[in-house]
Structures are given as structure tokens and as C-alpha cells.
């Protein structure tokens, strides 16, 4: 554990560097990046060892507050998440150093770097925590630091609003977790995870714990319908923070669910089904709503909802497997969930970083104001394209591997009679994949391809190296996992097995042989495509290669504004899903446009709060300012209490 904590300390020191070298920005950025990467590597070292098959490590500290020792440890589950946190954290932070440089002087940039470093450190502490109090502390620090990062541009009203909604949501979730731990820890009073595991209740108690866990952690994960805070917060935050949030912060909800499942034992069957159904709902609705967005970052944020859905599908299958004593199925389900968590962390942060580069270059995130960036930002586009293909789940990239593993879990439920209905989720997952394809075709096409639709989009140039290097590091990870899934699937299955309580060998035997074939497929795909391309180039080298305007079906003077817009691209799908898609069509005499609506936020959450507010306001006349009535309250209270006394005593005259 020493390299772990030393690494985290180094990360925090890195966070201080920009404040220390305030006068010399170049040196500050170098020191920040260097120390951050160094610290992340050091902290990741023990995690990598654990994942490679080493023994889990643990350290116990005597606590100065009640609740038992403060235990920190790295077991496979923690190690897996740690790798994701540190990888994405380092990439986002390094990106942030370059991304925020233009804002230095106008906004407190050094503070953001420090907060980012602390955020990453607390995320790492969170997954290493093995007792309740440090867990909750790290949980809340993570959430609150993220809030401060989200409201970086607090001079904008919508940023403050999004920040508030985020903060309220996360706090509500935290309260649910407090309830869960308070309930769970009540018999012993010792709040280490070991003690909780030993005191894991059964029956109604377990049901309560799992319900609260689903609510509390689900809020963080952003599953539908608890996702309503997520798009706003992600859109409001500085881009590298969005990447960090979407990549790892919301995954802490998944981590929490997995950890609780590990500690509390097999969840009830209804819980597994519920998680599965919520996963399907999140996946389908998330991607559908993503499709209708006009803001690039909001779109990506909704894709996080979608991917959380996919992860939850895996988790639900794992839970069902664990419930019905099928450890292999459980290990594959949980393994698929954690692997998709890692993969989503990689490609989603990559996509956010790409979106940030676009925003820096053009000053806008509105998809329909962009276009044609592939020419001016070829490298950004390449990285973004890799991320897009990965998130859609296409081979030969990492998204395919984890979606395939989740499919494996679903299909293997065919062997388990009580869980066979899970097979229907396959259709949902397929739908999610196809809709994601539609969505990223829209994004890639509208933002990078075709022609620039507005002047700002015409002016953007290629992103700076400081932005590109982190993006390509993440892209490389996506490609590597896609090409050689054997590196990560094994550890993922082992993690799944620790949650399922066995089944590692069976799961490895079940899916292991396929991994080589997937690598082969990837290799063939790349080789054949490259070969065909090469052949074609050779063929065409000797022929006429004309250049002309795009064929306008007879129309002679095409104009960039005549291009198909992203909104139109999504229109047939939005129309097919009707009101569920939540697209509001605005018809004005001279304009016609669509506006995506936040169905849950605007039609559920805000009205609910309005109702609460209405009830509260009805009470307000109590405080009407008239003293005599105030004394009357006092008198009335006294009389009521005396009545209570009389009833309790019942005339006990000696």
C-alpha cells in the first residue's frame, strides 16, 4: 500500500504545482503533467500486481472516530477500478493543463488543477476504502469536489443550475447510502467492510440494503430515471472534468453496487431483474435521448447513461447468476460489467476530450453549427473516430469485447432455468448498439465530415499536442484492448468471480478460447482492409482521379447550409419513438427547429419539487408575524402535552 499512498500524495503535489509556479505557466504545466503521471503510475503499480494475480494488499489504521478501524486495501475489484481511475485521471488531468491554459488569468485555473488532482486522489481512496467512514468521506469528497469543478464557469446561470441539480442529486444519493450503512452496521457497531460482510442480513434486511444501494449508487451512476442530473452537469463542467466524471466518477455507482453485492451476498432475484430492466431502460432511453441532442457534450453525457445501462445489464445477469447458484454465469455477468466499465471509461473520456478540442477550436458545441472539421483537425478526428467506433461496440475495438462479454452472460442464462427470461435483453442490447451507431454516425458526420456550416467552424485548426497526446493515449488503450482482449478479460472475469464467490476457472474456460479468435478477427480485419486499400490505391494511381462538387442530384449550386443537419438525421428515429424521444418541434413562421426535452427532469423531478414546495408554502402562514398567535402555539402545545399526561397517568391519585 505504500506505493499507492505515495502515488496519491504525488498526485496531490502535482495539483499544487500550477499554484506554486503561477508566474511560469510552461514550467507549471510540465511539473503538473510529469508529477501527475508519475503519481498515477506509482499508485497503479500495486493494482496492476493484484490484477496480475498477486495477493490482495491491505492496511489497517486505528481510527480516531467510532466505527472501527479504517481499513484500506486493494483487491481485484478495487484494482480494476483503480486502473481505470488512474488511467483516465492522468489523461484528463494532462489534457486539462493544456485545455485550460487559454483561460488563465480570467478564471482560477490553478484551483481547478488542484481540485482535479484531489478528485482523482479521492476517487482512488474511495475504491481502496474498506470501512464505512472513510468510504463515505471519500464518496462525499469526490462528489463535492466534482461540484466545485462543475461550476468552474459559475458566472453562467445554466452552469449554476446544473451544478445545483447535480449537488442535490448526489447528496440525496449519499443520504440513501448513509441509511444503508447505518441500517447494515447497527448490530455490531463496527463498520469495517469485513464486519459488514459478517453481519450481512438476509430476507427483508437484505432487500432493504439492496434497495437503498440501488437508489444511492444508482443516482451516482445515472441510471434512468435517476439520471436527470447527469447531462446538465457534464455539459456544464470544463471538458476534461466531464471526461473524468463520465469516465470514472459515475462508475463509482457501479463500483458501489458491485461492492455491496460482494459484501452482502447474493442479492434477491427481484433485485437482479430490476437491475436488468433498469439497465435496459437506461440503455435504450439513454441512447435515444442522446440521438436527439444538439449539444455535443450533452449528447455524450446521454451516452454515459446508455453505457451505464449496458453495464447494469451485465450486473443484473451476474446478480441472477449469483442468486441461482450459477457462479460461472455470475462471474461472466459481473466480469462483463466491470470490463465495460473500464472500456467505457476509456472511450467516453476520449470522446469528451475530442469534444473539448472541437470546442476550443471552434468555440461552439452545437452540432449543427459545426461540420467539415475532419480536414482541419485530422488527428482529433482520427482519435474521435476511434472513440466513436469503440462506443458503438464495433470490432476491432474494446467496446466490442465488453459488449460481447455481456452478450455472453445474457446468452448463458439460457442454461439457467429461472433466469432464462434474461435472454430477451439480448434484443434490447442489440437495439442499443444499433441506435448508438446511428447516433455516432450523426455526430461524426455532422461535426467532422461534410462542410463547415458556420463561420466559427471554418476557422478551427488542429488541436495542440497537449490535447492530442492524452487523446491518443486513450485511443491506443482502446485499440490495444480490442486487439488483445485476453489481457483484460481474464482479470475482469477474476474480479467477477470474487463478487460471485467463485466460478473463475469455469468462466475462463467458457469464454477464454474465444478471445484468441477475436484477436484473429481484429487482425484479419485490419490486414484485409489495409491490403484492399493498398490495392485500390495502386489501381487508382494510374487512373484519372477527378475532382468535382458533390453531386447535388441536378442542383447546380450546393451550399454548406443545404447539408443534412444532425437534427434531420435523427428525425426518423425520433419520430418512430414518438413522445418517448422527447423531441419538441418548434414551428415558427420563418423557422423550424427541434428542441430536445429533459423528460425526467422537466416532467418528473422539477414538478415533484414544485409539489413539495407547494406543500411547504402552505405551511408558511404559520409564521405570520402575530405574537399573540405565537403564544397561542405555545399554550396549545402545553395543553396537548397535559392531555397526553392525563391520558398516560389516568388519574393516579395516591
Amino acid at each position: 500500500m505504500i506505493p499507492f499512498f505515495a502515488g496519491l500524495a504525488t498526485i496531490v503535489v502535482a495539483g499544487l504545482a500550477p499554484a506554486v509556479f503561477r508566474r511560469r505557466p510552461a514550467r507549471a504545466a510540465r511539473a503538473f503533467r510529469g508529477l501527475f503521471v508519475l503519481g498515477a503510475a506509482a499508485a497503479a503499480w500495486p493494482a496492476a500486481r493484484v490484477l496480475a494475480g498477486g495477493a490482495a494488499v491491505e492496511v489497517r489504521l486505528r481510527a480516531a472516530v467510532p466505527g472501527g478501524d479504517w481499513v484500506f486495501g486493494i483487491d481485484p475489484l478495487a484494482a480494476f477500478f483503480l486502473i481505470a481511475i488512474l488511467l483516465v485521471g492522468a489523461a484528463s488531468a494532462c489534457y486539462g493543463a493544456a485545455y485550460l491554459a487559454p483561460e488563465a488569468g480570467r478564471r482560477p485555473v490553478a484551483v481547478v488543477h488542484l481540485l482535479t488532482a484531489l478528485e482523482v486522489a479521492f476517487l482512488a481512496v474511495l475504491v481502496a476504502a474498506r470501512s464505512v467512514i472513510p468510504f463515505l468521506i471519500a464518496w462525499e469528497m469526490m462528489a463535492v469536489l466534482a461540484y466545485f469543478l462543475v461550476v468552474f464557469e459559475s458566472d453562467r446561470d445554466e452552469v449554476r443550475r446544473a451544478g445545483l441539480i447535480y449537488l442535490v442529486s448526489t447528496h440525496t444519493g449519499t443520504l440513501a447510502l448513509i441509511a444503508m450503512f447505518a441500517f447494515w452496521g447497527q448490530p455490531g457497531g463496527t463498520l469495517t467492510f469485513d464486519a459488514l460482510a459478517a453481519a450481512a442480513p438476509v430476507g427483508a434486511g437484505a432487500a432493504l440494503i439492496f434497495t437503498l444501494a440501488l437508489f444511492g449508487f444508482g443516482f451516482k451512476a445515472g441510471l434512468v430515471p435517476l439520471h436527470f442530473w447527469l447531462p446538465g452537469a457534464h455539459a456544464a463542467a470544463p471538458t476534461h472534468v466531464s471526461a473524468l466524471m463520465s469516465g470514472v466518477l459515475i462508475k463509482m455507482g457501479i463500483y458501489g453496487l458491485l461492492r455491496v453485492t460482494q459484501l452482502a451476498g447474493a442479492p434477491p432475484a427481484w433485485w437482479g431483474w430490476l437491475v436488468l430492466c433498469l439497465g435496459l431502460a437506461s440503455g435504450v432511453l439513454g441512447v435515444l435521448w442522446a440521438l436527439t441532442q444538439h449539444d455535443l457534450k450533452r449528447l455524450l453525457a446521454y451516452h454515459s447513461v446508455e453505457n451505464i445501462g449496458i453495464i447494469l445489464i451485465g450486473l443484473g445477469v451476474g446478480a441472477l447468476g449469483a442468486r441461482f447458484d450459477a457462479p460461472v454465469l455470475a462471474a461472466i455477468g459481473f466480469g462483463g460489467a466491470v470490463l465495460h466499465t473500464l472500456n467505457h471509461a476509456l472511450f467516453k473520456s476520449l470522446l469528451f476530450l475530442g469534444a473539448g478540442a472541437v470546442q476550443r477550436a471552434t468555440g461552439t458545441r452545437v452540432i449543427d453549427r459545426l461540420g467539415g472539421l475532419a480536414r482541419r483537425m485530422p488527428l482529433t478526428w482520427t482519435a474521435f473516430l476511434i472513440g466513436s467506433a469503440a462506443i458503438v461496440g464495433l470490432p476491432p475495438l474494446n467496446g466490442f469485447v465488453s459488449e460481447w462479454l455481456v452478450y455472453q452472460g445474457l446468452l448463458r442464462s439460457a442454461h439457467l432455468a429461472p433466469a432464462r427470461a434474461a435472454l430477451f435483453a439480448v434484443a434490447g442490447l442489440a437495439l442499443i448498439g444499433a441506435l448508438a451507431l446511428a447516433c455516432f454516425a450523426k455526430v461524426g458526420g455532422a461535426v467532422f465530415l461534410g462542410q463547415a456550416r458556420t463561420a466559427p467552424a471554418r476557422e478551427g485548426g488542429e488541436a495542440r499536442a497537449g490535447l492530442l497526446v492524452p487523446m491518443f493515449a486513450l485511443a491506443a488503450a482502446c485499440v490495444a484492448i480490442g486487439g488483445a482482449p485476453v489481457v483484460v478479460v481474464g482479470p475482469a472475469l477474476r474480479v467477477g468471480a470474487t463478487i460471485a464467490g467463485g466460478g473463475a476457472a469455469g468462466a475462463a474456460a467458457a469464454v477464454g478460447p474465444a478471445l484468441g479468435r477475436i484477436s484473429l478477427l481484429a487482425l484479419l480485419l485490419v490486414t484485409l482492409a489495409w491490403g484492399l486499400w493498398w490495392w485500390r490505391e495502386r489501381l487508382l494511381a494510374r487512373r484519372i482521379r477527378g475532382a468535382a462538387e458533390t453531386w447535388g442530384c441536378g442542383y447546380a449550386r450546393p451550399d454548406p447550409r443545404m447539408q443534412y443537419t444532425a437534427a434531420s438525421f435523427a428525425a426518423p428515429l425520433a419520430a418512430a419513438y414518438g413522445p418517448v424521444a422527447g423531441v419538441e418541434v418548434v414551428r415558427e413562421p420563418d423557422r423550424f427547429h427541434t428542441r430536445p426535452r429533459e423528460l425526467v427532469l422537466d416532467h418528473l423531478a422539477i414538478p415533484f419539487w414544485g409539489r413539495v414546495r407547494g406543500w411547504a408554502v402552505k405551511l408558511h402562514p404559520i409564521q405570520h408575524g402575530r405574537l399573540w398567535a405565537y403564544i397561542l402555539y405555545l399554550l396549545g402545545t402545553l395543553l396537548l402535552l397535559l392531555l397526553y399526561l392525563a391520558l398516560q397517568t389516568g388519574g393516579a391519585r395516591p
Partner: protein
Amino acid sequence: MTWSAPVALAVVIGMAPLIPGIAAKTKARLAGRRGPPVLQLYRDLGRLWHKGVVYSRVTTWVFRMGPVVGVVTAGLAACLLPLDGRGALITFSGDFVAFAYLLALGRFALVLAALDTGSSFEGMGASREVTVASFAEPALFLAFVALVLATDSLSLGGALGGPLVQAWPAATPALAMVTASLFLVLLAEGARVPVDDPATHLELTMIHEVMVLDHSGPDLAMILFGHAVKMTLFAALLIGAIFPRASLPVLPAIGILVAGLVVVAVAVGIVESVMARLRLTHVPQFLTAASALAALGVILLLVA
């Protein structure tokens, strides 16, 4: 894997351009016309392959990459199907996910290539393409699920192999529904009536065709060929589901495949002749019906 798999693969890929030809011929004959020769597509491909190209100034490498990826993914997907009835070139647990996602990758590449032109027509086509595909995908996967349930095998090689032979008598109604669903998916993925009309000349009503308006020369050849392969693959999948041939000797197995492909092509032609094209807004309903069919099959298998 034996020598039969590569041979079957070669036969299927070689036959691919024939399938649209047969369908078109059937349609023409039923309409009382002579129609283009059955081998017309081979001729077109050959001619295109030797032509030069014209590129829009708007396009980038994405535009040129699209056809390449389209062909390669179709070819690789073919490697995953047990075309000879006994085993695919590459087979592994859950390989039909790879099958579907490889085809999806091809579609992604083509759609991006279409959008790269900046043409509103091609954008429209791309939009329709992904819409249709998103409704077809669940049906395809549900059909796979049904096959998995019927055969207890997680790979295409198994699901379309020996166990399916035993499964047919036991679960005839369910598998019949599944094959019907697969046929509907074939019509959608092959861009045929009633989802799309390959013969239309009005860009505003096209789906697949309008997506490739700007391609020319070898690029267009690759697109046409890739599309033919893809359609043939779905036909082969359908035949595999209807006639599991694991117990037959190799040559009859391949023979049945060839015959089956012709029959499917004719069937497509007949459908095109007797049905009108659906309104675009009704396509989702059509494909949802396909999903429902497959889902019913799955339910029947689950209940059994």
C-alpha cells in the same frame, strides 16, 4: 474445419452478385418484361473496377475508406457463417455477435462515407439506413437467441449445425417463426421491397442507393459487391436455419446451399413483384413485426 469451409465460402462470395440478378430477373419476368441478364452485376462490377474515379472536393479519406471497410467486413462476416453446414472458418462462443457487429462496422463506414460528401441526399439516405438497421437488429438477435435456445449452442457453427437438425421436429412452429423473421430481416438488410426499392429512380424515396450517389469506379464496385455479399450472407443464414446440413456429405450440403440461395433470390423477386413499397414511416412497424415474430419464437422455446 475442413477443406469444405473455404470452398463453401468461395462459392458464396462468388455467387453473391448473382443473387440480386436473379431477384431482378424474377421480378421482370413476373411483370412480363425480359429484364436485365442475370449476370448483369458481374459485368457492371468488372466495368466499374476498370474505371477512373471522380471525387467531390468536400470528401476526405473517410469517403474512400467506406467501400473498403464495407467489403472487408462482409467478407469477414462470411467467414463466421457455417456455409458448408458443419463449421465456419472462424468460430467461437458468441460469434454471431461478431457477425452482426462486423456488418454494423461496414454500415458505419458507409454511412460516414455518405456523410463525408456533405450532400443532403446522401445524408438523408444515411439517416434512413441507420434507422432501418436499428429496427432490424433486434429481430436478428432474437432470431439468434431462438437458435441458441433450440440448440443449446452459443456459436453460429453449433446453432446452425447438428443440434438444429434435432431441434426442428421438436420445435417446428417456433423455428418457423424464426425463419420468417430472418426472411424479413433479409429484406431489410438487403435493401429490398417492401423496405427499400433498388429499382427506384427518385432520390427522395431511396435509402441504400442514395447513400452511394457520389461513389464511382472501383469504390462503387466495392460497394455493390459488398452489398451483394451481405445480402447473400443473410440468405445463407436463412438457409442454414431452414436446412441444417450437418449430417449431409459436403457436396450435397454445398449444393443445397447454392440451390437455396437461388430460391431465396427468387423469393425476394416474387415479394418485390407482389408487394408495394412501404411508406418510410411504416418501416419501423414492419420490422417490429419481424422482432415480434422472433420474440414469439423465443417464447415458444422458453415455454417448451
